[in-house]
């Protein structure tokens, strides 16, 4: 994950109606119980003794689930960056599916998304994979590629 200034990122409980139920483990509860719209993620990590990356991941998950929203005046949540090995795995499977043209297609699609390989955001990885998989014309091969990539997405 890229270095990020978490001292300016603050959350508060969401004002939107919650749909469904959510299960929280102990770590998630520790983070949630310290969310007050004033404490930054860095302060919560220090107070709870938890790793900053763990606190950020938990807050990001709760945010996506609709439990949290950014507090007024807060900086944006830093974006996680994809590990180079993960992109290499995407490249490797794409080469297996369509041959050496995979390198060109991968670079073109990364550029088309306005991103760079070195700093590719984790939250756009599925979008990139979907776009490059369109280059696989054989339906079965494309589905197989997407199946493998779903595992990569869940592991990363």
């Amino acid at each position, binding site marked *: 994950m890229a270095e990020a200034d978490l001292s300016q990122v603050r959350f508060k409980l969401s004002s939107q109606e919650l*749909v469904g*139920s959510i299960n929280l483990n102990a770590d998630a509860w520790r983070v949630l119980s310290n969310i007050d719209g004033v404490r930054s993620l860095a302060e919560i990590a220090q107070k709870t003794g938890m790793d900053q990356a763990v606190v950020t991941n938990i807050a990001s998950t709760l945010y996506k689930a609709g439990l949290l929203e950014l507090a007024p005046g807060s900086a944006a949540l830093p974006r996680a960056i994809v590990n180079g090995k993960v992109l290499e795995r995407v490249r490797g499977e794409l080469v297996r599916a369509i041959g050496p043209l995979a390198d060109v297609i991968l670079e073109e699609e990364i550029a088309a998304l306005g991103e760079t390989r070195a700093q590719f955001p984790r939250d756009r990885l599925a979008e990139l994979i979907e776009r490059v998989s369109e280059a696989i014309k054989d339906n079965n091969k494309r*589905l197989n590629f997407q199946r493998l990539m779903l595992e990569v997405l869940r592991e990363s």
Partner: protein
Amino acid sequence: MMDRSLMTLARVQKHIGALLNEIPKVGGVHGVFVCDNRGKPFAAWSSSTPESSAFDQIGLNVAQIYAALARQMGQVREIEIYYQHRVLVARDLGNIFVVTLCMPNTDRALLRMSLNVAAESLEKDTETQRELARVAPSRADTLSAGYLDAAGQLLIDRLSSPG
């Protein structure tokens, strides 16, 4: 006939099991249900306890939308509807369709790929598709009088009248 129906049911349940297992794994998804061509849900998963009538109504409306779009522009595979800070994503799977209810910030590319993979076996199972078509042959039926309320019938009448 009974054995064949049971076999079809077993196959449908197996296919739907794949959908209901995989799709909820996508972050932000809070409901998934599978409908026949008339919009009747026959399997569902939800993170809360929904009223079954809600899924019945949504299923029927989605079937009607598919039918109306097919009439105007041909076969449509996927529909996205934004409502009350939520998103409904419907995917056509032949003689069945699946509806996913999710948050607006749900990773849509991840959802689409999860649907592609989870639905593969059902889409390719021609025998099951044939049996499902026997039960509910056409979504176009949902645009007929028996399925429309007064407002819907008025809209259809106006769209159908010349000028």
